[in-house]
């Protein structure tokens, strides 16, 4: 053992040196440690005093927090808190509920008794029912008195209904710290739970005596935490929030990050994928994360990854061994405490894939369409007009957009330009036939629906199929009632917005009670399947012929074209709706064969009807859900296991089971990250019968076979028979390149489903990929391009648009200019590249109609210098590729450079939905030096309020104003100078005190003051009312020229068409909507001006308006 002594000596010397250096204040050794929970204890008794000991030794330098609940008929209260080590406890707050129960909070820094378990004794003024929670924390301020408290709030009341009660937000915090929430009631047998955002530390409930909760969450500067606890009805309660200052001077500087949360693991083959929520960065960017695997509880070699990432594929694990994982975050100040352990996973050689927990959705997703911007367009049914929902997987936000009509059980597919074509719908909701003639188009660039030319026939349950030339054919569908069908297909030409009836074709053989299946085959014809009759036909659109092919042996099943011209058809039952048993039959047909004929193959493992078939990134087919019979009314069918069909073996195998059964009206699509999104089910005869208001995401087995290859670059568009370069650092290991259509699914039918393997050759750092030879293999439009490595693991896909031919680029769009001093910053959106990469842009300034010296750049932003101050300019942009140069864009907004910066609008985003938080992401990257202004609208029945705003880059937001309308809706305004996150899209998240309808509007401005706190605000005025013209009233006089008056309007959704007030320019308008409606507008304010933001609404609408005059830079 003698050899240990020198080591002990070295450790001692190092420790002493550290102490000396800390004493000298050298930052490298005195790094702040984020506040962290250490241990806790609780007790309850009917006594005059009660002692409690923590389970482990306390640590000198930590802090003990004691929560005391006291009730007696004589209104006893807490008198003292002491401990056996003579630490000094200070009473920080006390509140008494209507039934006489007192909640008090006490705290002491651990000065004495380190390394022991000192008994902590609470003494009341008389014998009483006592409830005591004790928690030890590290990283909190060591001050001995109440100055440890940064901010606090408290509230008491009696709940009328079950729900969340809160302390209300504290005043704005002045630094980093830890918010502790304390809840007490006198025992009503209620089950308590910590509120959103807080981590529960102590929960003594349900009991018939004292019930209490202690919870916490890290906070940063500028926050207003509000502790909430879910309780039952009829309970006299008290809640307090106390923000304890962090160590290191009360948190007035950056600290180490908080601990990552929500750490989950998914098993793979000798690997696991670990996901977590990145914590608050403590005021300094997170530089790395450390993931530590635990094999059967024993820590393994940690893995350190750079940046603030939220996922890691952990390789080199041992199959058959149970693993958990912790994650810690590091910034320049220090490293957080490790997270809680993840769930345990056991890697296996043949994983069956894994389902993520179900997500609650506010509707049943009967229709699901993937958009080329990564979002999903979804809708339910039975409404006129039909609400549709835009879901952003990145933020889990929904945006409601009203469709023009009832598009329930319409046909849906993508147009070549990425818009969504919807054909037909449900006409009997009010006045009309069963089908409707509507053609509606959704544009994902503007998030708007529009009507196109009507069809000649009304259709409900038609198919729609893209043809090689970019036209679309629709087949079948009910017309006047359930017993009549549109017998003649029609062809839609998007270029001319016309429908042409194929009058020589009669499809009466496929009088479907569900959708027919219709696939564009490599021979250019449309292969059409009548599921109910088990018939199939060739439709030759150009020659207007209709030729029988044969029966499949599958009735009312589900199908997918898993390779060009190869169709898989399985399951079903003999009837569509009356409860006939499901079947497992499986058939395939090869339409590229000289004589195409159906061929039966091995049946499914489970007979199922109404299941979905989704061709995945590796070309295998996933079957999800379904019912054991054709009874559409059954929701809980217990067919939870998935099946995967391998084209190589034509065999089904069983995959992982989902948690929610789904059958009729379910939908499924392959996502760009290789997972499969599944949602819906139910609502079979109305929107009021049971339905599955949820979605789940399936990670197929291929995501558990090790690291994923990556695509670092791919052309945004191309044409047929081209060779395109796909950049990947994994080129040497790539085994397949697959093109998969975006997908548009409803009723077991993906009308936009296509999977095309591509030929390729390997280069250094790239693949040379051959695009499809012609449009019959892949008609024009957007596709997901996956590369797969030798283990069959797919990359995240890049979106590639297949164009009919190569041309010069389109004109750039959304050209916007912001004035500077003798300069302007011009930004624009990249146009379609014509199938050939854009090599550069030319920006031309204009004075009036006179072009000035152009500027050439390669990106989508340009700094144009050499301009003349006080002269108005506009800008036009052209794009160039190897084929030629585009037409010029439309002119930008006019700007006038000035030595004094003039505030300028840059971009906006808005979102709304239910929940305790609402996040929105800016459509473009933000710029450091700009300012974000954020509007938050909140409404629920219990008066929820905005409690904080944060963003993904850690910018610090200050609350500027808050006003509550006559209907208890709150509008608050927040702002932050952008000091970090430049060049990135920022996700801005608003938190509220309890789950509510939350609307968030964000606008980025340039040229505003970057002063912190309220230093950038010149004046602010709010007003509320119900008049037809909403107005804040006039602010005080502007203190300078070129300040910016921004008007904010909120109401709780009365389908009003809001318009901006005179003299104001609208920047954001989410009206009309049945939910939160918001408008933001602005105007420049000259010296002495008294701006008054007004918004035109409708009388009797409870509104709130705020005018904030921001100072220029």
């Amino acid at each position, binding site marked *: 053992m003698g050899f240990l002594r020198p080591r002990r000596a070295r450790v001692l010397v190092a420790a002493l040196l550290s102490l000396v250096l800390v004493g000298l204040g050298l930052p490298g050794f005195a790094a702040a440690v984020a506040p962290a929970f250490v241990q806790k204890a609780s007790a309850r008794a009917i006594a005059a005093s009660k002692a409690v000991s923590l389970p482990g030794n306390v640590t000198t330098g930590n802090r003990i927090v004691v929560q005391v609940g006291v009730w007696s008929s004589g209104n006893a209260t807490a008198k003292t808190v002491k401990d056996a080590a003579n630490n000094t406890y200070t009473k920080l707050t006390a509140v008494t509920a209507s039934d006489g129960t007192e909640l008090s909070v006490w705290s002491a820094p651990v000065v004495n008794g380190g390394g022991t378990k000192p008994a902590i004794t609470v003494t009341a003024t008389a014998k009483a029912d006592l409830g005591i929670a004790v928690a030890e924390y590290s990283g909190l301020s060591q001050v001995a008195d109440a100055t440890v408290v940064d901010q606090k709030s408290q509230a008491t009341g009696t709940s009328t209904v079950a729900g969340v009660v809160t302390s209300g937000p504290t005043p704005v915090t002045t630094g980093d710290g830890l918010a502790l929430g304390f809840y007490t009631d006198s025992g009503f047998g209620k089950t308590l739970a910590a509120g959103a955002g807080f981590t529960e530390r102590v929960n003594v409930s349900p009991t018939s005596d004292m019930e209490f909760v202690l919870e916490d969450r890290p906070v940063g500067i500028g926050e207003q935490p509000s502790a909430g606890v879910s309780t039952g009805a009829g309970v006299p309660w008290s809640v307090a929030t106390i923000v304890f200052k962090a160590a290191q001077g009360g948190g007035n500087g950056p600290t180490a990050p908080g601990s990552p949360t929500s750490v989950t693991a998914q098993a793979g083959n000798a690997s696991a994928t670990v996901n977590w929520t990145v914590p608050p960065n403590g005021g300094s960017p997170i530089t790395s994360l450390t993931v530590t695997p635990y094999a059967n509880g024993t820590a393994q070699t940690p893995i350190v990854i750079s940046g603030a990432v939220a996922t890691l594929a952990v390789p080199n694990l041992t199959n058959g061994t149970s693993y958990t994982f912790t994650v810690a975050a590091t910034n320049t100040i220090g490293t957080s405490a490790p997270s809680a352990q993840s769930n345990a996973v056991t890697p296996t050689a043949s994983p069956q894939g894994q389902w993520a927990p179900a997500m609650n959705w506010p509707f049943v997703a009967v229709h699901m369409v993937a958009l080329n911007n990564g979002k999903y367009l979804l809708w339910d049914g039975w409404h006129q007009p039909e609400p549709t929902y835009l879901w952003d997987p990145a933020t889990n936000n929904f945006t409601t957009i009203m469709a023009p009509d009832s598009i329930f059980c319409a046909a849906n597919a993508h147009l070549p330009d990425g818009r969504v074509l919807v054909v037909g719908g449900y006409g009997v909701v*009010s006045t009309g036939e069963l089908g409707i003639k509507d053609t509606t188009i959704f544009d994902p660039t503007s998030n708007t629906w529009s009507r196109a030319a009507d069809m000649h026939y009304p259709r409900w349950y038609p198919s729609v199929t893209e043809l090689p030339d970019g036209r679309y054919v629709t087949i079948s569908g009910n017309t006047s*009632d359930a017993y009549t069908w549109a017998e003649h297909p029609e062809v839609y030409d998007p270029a001319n917005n016309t429908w042409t009836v194929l009058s020589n074709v009669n499809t009466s053989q496929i009088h479907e009670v569900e959708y027919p299946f219709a696939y564009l085959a490599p021979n250019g014809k449309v292969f059409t399947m009548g599921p109910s009759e088990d018939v199939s036909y060739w439709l030759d659109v150009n020659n207007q012929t209709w030729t029988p092919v044969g029966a499949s042996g599958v009735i009312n099943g589900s199908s997918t074209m898993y390779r060009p011209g190869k169709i898989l058809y399985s399951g079903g039952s003999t009837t569509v709706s009356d409860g006939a048993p499901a079947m497992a039959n499986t058939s395939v047909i090869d339409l590229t064969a000289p004589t195409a004929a159906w061929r039966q193959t091995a049946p499914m493992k489970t007979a199922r009807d109404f299941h979905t078939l989704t061709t995945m990134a590796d070309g295998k087919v996933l079957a999800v859900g379904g019912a054991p019979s054709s009874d559409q009314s059954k929701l809980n069918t217990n067919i939870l296991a998935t099946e995967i069909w391998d084209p190589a073996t034509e065999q089904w195998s069983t995959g992982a089971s989902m948690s929610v059964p789904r059958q009729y009206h379910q939908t499924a699509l392959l996502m760009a990250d290789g997972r499969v999104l599944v949602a819906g089910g139910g609502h079979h005869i109305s929107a009021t019968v049971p339905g599955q208001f949820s979605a789940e995401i399936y990670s197929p087995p291929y995501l558990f076979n090790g690291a994923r290859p990556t695509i670092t670059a791919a052309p945004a568009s191309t044409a047929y028979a081209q060779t395109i370069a796909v950049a990947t650092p994994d080129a040497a290991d790539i085994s397949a390149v697959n093109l998969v259509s975006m997908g548009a699914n409803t009723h077991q039918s993906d009308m936009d489903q296509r999977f095309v393997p591509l030929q390729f050759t390997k280069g250094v750092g790239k693949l040379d990929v051959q695009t499809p030879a012609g449009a019959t293999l892949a008609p024009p439009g957007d596709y997901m391009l996956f590369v797969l490595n030798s283990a069959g693991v797919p990359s995240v896909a890049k979106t590639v648009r297949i164009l009919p031919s190569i041309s010069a680029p389109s004109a750039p769009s959304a050209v916007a200019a912001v004035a500077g001093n003798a300069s302007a910053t011009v930004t624009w959106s990249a146009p379609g590249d014509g199938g050939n990469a854009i090599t550069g842009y030319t920006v031309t300034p204009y004075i009036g109609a006179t072009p000035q010296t152009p500027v050439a750049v390669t990106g989508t932003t340009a700094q144009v210098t050499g301009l003349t101050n006080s002269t108005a300019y506009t800008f036009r942009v052209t794009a160039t590729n190897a084929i030629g140069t585009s037409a010029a864009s439309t002119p930008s907004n006019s700007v006038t450079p000035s030595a004094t910066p003039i505030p300028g609008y840059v971009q906006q985003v808005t979102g709304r939905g239910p929940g305790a938080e609402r996040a929105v992401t800016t459509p473009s990257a933000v710029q450091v030096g700009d300012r974000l202004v954020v509007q938050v609208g909140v409404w629920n029945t219990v008066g929820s309020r905005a409690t904080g705003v944060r963003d993904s880059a850690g910018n610090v937001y200050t609350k500027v104003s808050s006003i509550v309308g006559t209907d208890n809706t709150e509008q608050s305004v927040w702002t932050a100078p952008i000091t970090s996150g430049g060049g990135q899209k920022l996700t801005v998240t608003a938190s509220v005190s309890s789950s509510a309808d939350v609307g968030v509007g964000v606008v980025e401005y340039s040229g505003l003051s970057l002063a912190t706190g309220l230093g950038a605000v010149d004046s602010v005025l709010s007003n509320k009312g119900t008049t037809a013209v909403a107005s804040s009233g006039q602010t005080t006089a502007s203190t300078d020229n070129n300040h910016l008056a921004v008007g904010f309007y909120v109401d709780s959704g009365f389908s009003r068409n809001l318009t901006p007030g005179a003299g104001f320019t609208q920047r954001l308008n989410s009206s009309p909507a049945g939910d939160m409606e918001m408008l933001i507008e602005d105007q420049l304010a000259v010296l002495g001006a008294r701006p008054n933001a007004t918004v035109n609404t409708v009388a009797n609408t409870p509104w709130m308006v705020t005018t904030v005059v921001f100072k220029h830079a």
Partner: protein
Amino acid sequence: MTATATPDTRPPLTRRPGVLLGVGAAVAAVVGAQFWLFGTAEDTPAAAVSGYFRAAIDEDCPRAFDLLTDPVRGSYGTVERLCERAKADTMVSFQVGDTVTTPEGAKVTVTLVRPNLTLVDAVTMVQVDGKWKIASFEVLSSDRGHGQP
């Protein structure tokens, strides 16, 4: 090859048409009598709903169109399109049910009777310039989904 319908999987084109017509006529008579007895101008949500469906059945398209707000007008686009759909409608009768007030206005239930299909709608009503108008329709129940006999 021509497929033929399988009798046990396909519903008959009509089921007891005589009974249906009789029931339809009786319901229409009751509704008509109610309207005659109690109908007023569109000064209540229920009266506005009744006025809309009465106008649609009567193919009084401008009057029906006037009782819609913009979002639901957009379903039809123009008076002429609403008229085209109203003329093609096979609705036999309708019956207005309960009215529930909401923060935004009111919801009125209405039963729509067509051959082989009876729906109950919730009609969302709002006041525009003091008059009750229809903002949207939602199917609360139907006696058949798709493909149900």
